[in-house]
């Protein structure tokens, strides 16, 4: 990287610099004030805990549980969200009938249902999958509906001028046109599904990263808790990047800034 590159894109240097400065300040404050590990561990202690947990595979096994819960929940949410969203957007009567319920459920904080689901479905993975699906479902549903309804009139005129059937218009125009929105919803949903799985594990579980956080919490292993948080952050970033990569291939024609969020 030359000096000129740095001048043109200073943030490329500033991003790691902020990280290094932050970690260094944290480390020196903890050392200088002799803050005990059970209050705030130094970054070096967190790194040690993370290294240890990763090498004895403790974190990996728990992480695998959480990831599979989240991904299964996400897939259920994606499938039902796309199907139900399509039905709602295509049929006026269905929309008018169901929309009040959609709005009501959407405003309900879904994670509040988690204890109930654990009672119904038990401490195993199934309750976590359902919670993850529930939390991830609405961003998909809403974006599918919005996406299917934002077709510009000229494209519909074109299809009408060809006497296209409703199905042809859906298949050739409305559906592909909605894909950027659908992917925006999926991108949010995948992150939400991890949130749902963790919350489910908090409420009652035997395994998973959420469970591990609770274990560390009881043992006052604060460094371990931070290590799990780092792992969760890395997981979130990885899922987001995978979604972005899929998105770039599927909706190659759409610029990211054409898409609205949730």
């Amino acid at each position, binding site marked *: 990287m030359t000096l000129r590159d740095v001048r043109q894109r200073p943030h490329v240097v500033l991003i790691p610099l902020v990280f290094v400065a932050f970690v260094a300040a944290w480390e020196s404050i903890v050392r200088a004030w002799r803050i005990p590990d059970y209050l705030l561990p130094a970054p070096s202690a967190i790194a040690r805990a993370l290294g240890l947990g990763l090498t004895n595979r403790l974190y990996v096994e728990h992480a695998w549980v959480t990831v599979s819960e989240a991904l299964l929940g996400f897939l259920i949410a994606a499938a039902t969200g796309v199907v139900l969203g399509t039905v709602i957007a295509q049929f006026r009567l269905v929309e008018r009938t169901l929309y009040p319920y959609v709005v009501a459920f959407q405003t309900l904080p879904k994670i509040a249902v988690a204890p109930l689901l654990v009672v119904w479905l038990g401490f195993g993975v199934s309750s976590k999958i359902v919670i993850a699906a529930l939390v991830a479902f609405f961003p998909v549903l809403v974006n599918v509906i919005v996406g299917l309804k934002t077709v510009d009139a000229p*494209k519909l005129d074109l299809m*009408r*001028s*060809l*006497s296209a059937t409703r199905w042809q218009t859906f298949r050739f*125009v409305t559906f*592909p046109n909605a894909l950027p929105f659908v992917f925006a919803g999926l991108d949010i949903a995948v992150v939400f599904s991890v949130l749902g799985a963790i919350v489910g594990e908090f409420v009652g579980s035997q395994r998973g990263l959420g469970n591990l956080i609770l274990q560390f919490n009881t043992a006052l292993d604060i460094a371990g808790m931070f290590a799990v948080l780092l792992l969760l952050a890395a997981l979130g970033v990885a899922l987001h990047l995978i979604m972005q990569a899929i998105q770039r291939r599927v909706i190659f024609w759409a610029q990211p800034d054409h898409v609205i969020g949730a």
Partner: protein
Amino acid sequence: MPASRVLPYYERPAIRGGQEDALLITAAGLNQTYVSQDRSVVPALADVSLAVAPGEFVTIVGPSGCGKTTLLRILGGLLRPTSGTVHLLGRAVTGPSRNVGIVFQDPVLLPWRTVLDNVLLPVQVLRLDRQTYRARALDLLGLVGLKGFEGKYPHELSGGMRQRVSLARALVHDPALLLMDEPFGALDAMTREAMNLELQRIWRESGKTVAFITHSISEAVFLGDRVVVMSPRPGRIADVVTVELGRPRDLDLMASDAFGVYARKIRQALGPRGMLE
């Protein structure tokens, strides 16, 4: 096919004899009123009657907002007029017909389809044989000067190229009538003149009947066998000017006296409120 096959409409015996059934499309007493959002009634077209002969190139010129797009939508069966009738090839128009190809003001391409697949959209929708029409689509892409671009996506093309794709798409299912709504309005002056030349060539080679909307007087004179001049809102037909300039016309013609005479005549018909250029 030889270019000389297509005679200007006014030289055709059938037209000279005034036989109605020789007309490709006729519009009689069209009126259109819109009800706008504040419930006020907007008269857009008033008593428009028009007849276009097979192979004829008619241009329709008028100030913006005078109802040109409205007229085109009615002719294309996309809009039912408040009153009046349209007949295409002797049959009353009640909806879109596969005998009409429309080039809209914007190219309206599907960004997820390649150029070739965009051109083949009508073929797919009308359930025609893809293999047969694929060859035709490639020929048409050649005709509009886009040979070799069939695998590109719309975002890889310039504005002028996109409108050429749109033209090829309007022609692919071989409609008898081509309706064009200010197709080159968004292009720069030089690209526009080049497109006018090409459109003239394509029209002569394909033998299509064209109704071409524009708000440019020189474009109207350059392209048209006949220029229909519309008055400001509500759109009425103020005058119809027959342009008896030979074909093919080249760009130098626009500097000629004869061309200037037609342009002046149309400008006068447009009236003081219709000054456009």
